[in-house]
């Protein structure tokens, strides 16, 4: 049992800057939770507080029910994958993977066993006697993951582990990570600013914005039932559209808009057409607001066209104009 409980974690720098304000979050045992947010939202700070690399101003962190708030990083029983990997350049891949076990005083047999096991899991066997400088970025990234998994941690923290890889490699590693981590059954907290990554990997996503948790939910809940205007605008590519309606805000996903005949729905002037293959993305103006419509890729529409559109009624999300909070139900997905 090693769930993570974050209770009222606050972090301020000096008297003026507040990085985190009273963050609460529960991560169940064996669960994969992504901390998603734009840069500067405090997600990395929160992760570093859990790791013990940063000290919170208030609040506490429990792992498996044990308060670890005041323990040094080495006594917290967790492992971490860093954004720049932080694979030790003076140690061979083998010794990098063995590092955590050695520091925890594991016996030689267990170290040897774990090195072989994690190396094969991450396809690193042929590279065990190389130094990190002799590896590619993707290989170094795998060493960082192997080093973390080798200690069989109760909790794994990952700080944007894929952000330094090129797009294609990132896609491969993402699938690989998901497979390995679900097999290992490690409780994982994963920081990312990439919403696709969060949606693809996580059991649940916690969206952070300006030091607050905006919403916690499954990827589908977050996507279809954003709790705030910020979540709707941040999650999804292209993001949710917002149109003002009688003092409220109507939120609608670009793919939840249908074309209708002339005289029906809302008039929509197409400015840009982006044929993306699977989808055709239209950007234009409706009711003097910028609006995006994602159509099936088979549609042929020219820029400058005047169309009529209608949001699917069951997909409309209403939000309070002042607070930006959703006023429709947010508990379950449709």
């Amino acid at each position, binding site marked *: 049992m090693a769930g993570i409980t974050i209770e009222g974690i606050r972090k301020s720098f000096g008297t003026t800057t507040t990085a985190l304000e009273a963050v609460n979050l529960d991560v169940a045992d064996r669960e994969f939770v992504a901390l998603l947010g734009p840069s500067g939202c405090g997600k990395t700070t929160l992760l570093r507080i859990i*790791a*013990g*690399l940063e000290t919170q101003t208030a609040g506490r962190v429990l792992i498996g029910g044990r308060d670890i708030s005041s323990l*040094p*990083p*080495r006594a*917290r029983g*967790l*492992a*971490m994958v*860093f954004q*720049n990997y*932080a694979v*030790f*350049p*003076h140690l061979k891949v083998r010794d990098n993977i063995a*590092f*955590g076990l050695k*520091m*925890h005083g594991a016996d030689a047999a267990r170290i040897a066993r774990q090195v072989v096991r994690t190396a094969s899991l991450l396809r690193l066997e042929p590279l065990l006697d*190389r*130094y990190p*400088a*002799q590896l590619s970025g993707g290989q170094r990234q795998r060493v960082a993951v192997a*080093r973390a998994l080798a*200690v069989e941690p109760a909790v794994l923290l990952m700080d944007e582990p894929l952000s330094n890889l090129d797009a294609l490699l990132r896609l491969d590693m993402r699938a690989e990570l998901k497979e390995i981590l679900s097999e290992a059954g490690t409780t994982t907290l994963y920081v990312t600013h990439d919403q696709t990554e969060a949606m693809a990997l996580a059991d649940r996503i916690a969206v952070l914005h300006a030091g607050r948790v905006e919403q916690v939910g499954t990827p589908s809940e977050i996507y279809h039932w954003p709790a705030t205007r910020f979540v709707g605008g941040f999650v999804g590519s292209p993001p949710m559209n917002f149109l003002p309606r009688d003092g409220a805000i109507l939120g609608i996903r670009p793919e939840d808009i249908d074309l209708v005949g002339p005289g029906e729905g809302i008039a929509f002037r197409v400015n840009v057409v982006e044929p993306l293959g699977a989808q055709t993305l239209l950007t234009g103006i409706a009711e003097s607001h910028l609006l995006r419509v994602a159509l099936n890729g088979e549609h042929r529409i020219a820029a400058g066209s005047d169309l009529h559109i209608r949001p699917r009624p069951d997909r409309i999300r209403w939000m309070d104009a002042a607070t930006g909070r959703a006023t429709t139900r947010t508990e379950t997905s449709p």
Partner: protein
Amino acid sequence: MRGRALPYLLVAPAVIFLTVLFFVPLVQTIALAFQTTNGTGFGNFARMADDLNFHDAVVNTFRFVGLAVPLQLAAAMGMAMMLRHLGRGRDTVLWIWTIPLGLSDLAAGLIWLAMLNDRGYLASLLFHLGLVSEPQSWLTYESPMALFIAVVIAEFWRATAIVVVILVAGLQLVPKEYAEAASVFGASPWRIFTRITLPLMKPSIQSALILRTVLAFEAFAVVIAIGGRNFPVLVSEAYNWQNFNQEPAVAAAYAVVVMVLSLVATVVWLRVLRTPEEQRA
């Protein structure tokens, strides 16, 4: 003007400078060292080695290098690590630490002489505290150990800061993430230092050691200021042969010995603390 000739033209002043003021005198010194009244040979070296002071000079030089350099390295390492953990005031502390670097060797030697001789601050203080009955003079030929310690203290005070500066610069090149990763994976602060920080700082430790060892073999003004002729080292003996004995050839032999020692020390540090290409960050 432009094109192929330009780079050579640009390095020419430096090359000419080094040739005229470094390479030519070097060759002349070496030639002089091997020049005897009956042709070339090791005559000057024999005269150097037969001299009474030679043995003391060799022993003193090696004791001095052997104690001062490791002391400076250890202290500078500690100081650099302390600076790393300092938030505000870091630059001020570093600045204060480097003040002795601005002083000439001789001035530094004289400062410590003023503090440590029989009418110096230390003697007066001990006298006023009643710890000694009359001002003592330690810095005489009768107490070579006291002389030795005084010279080491003065050199330590004067030249440790340059090691600190090199190590601080080196430490800044080591990303903090390595130490953080080590701590997350269970390493204690001491183990982080020995297993991660020290190995990653090898290149700057190497630079600092080469610089300090070579300069310690050549220590002169501090030694002369505190020890005078009572604490002979190789370089001060070269000075004595040149100026008091009017024997430039024997002085040149000393110079050659010091040069060879410096070269050997440099090669040793280059080899012992080599960081292979593949282990660089």
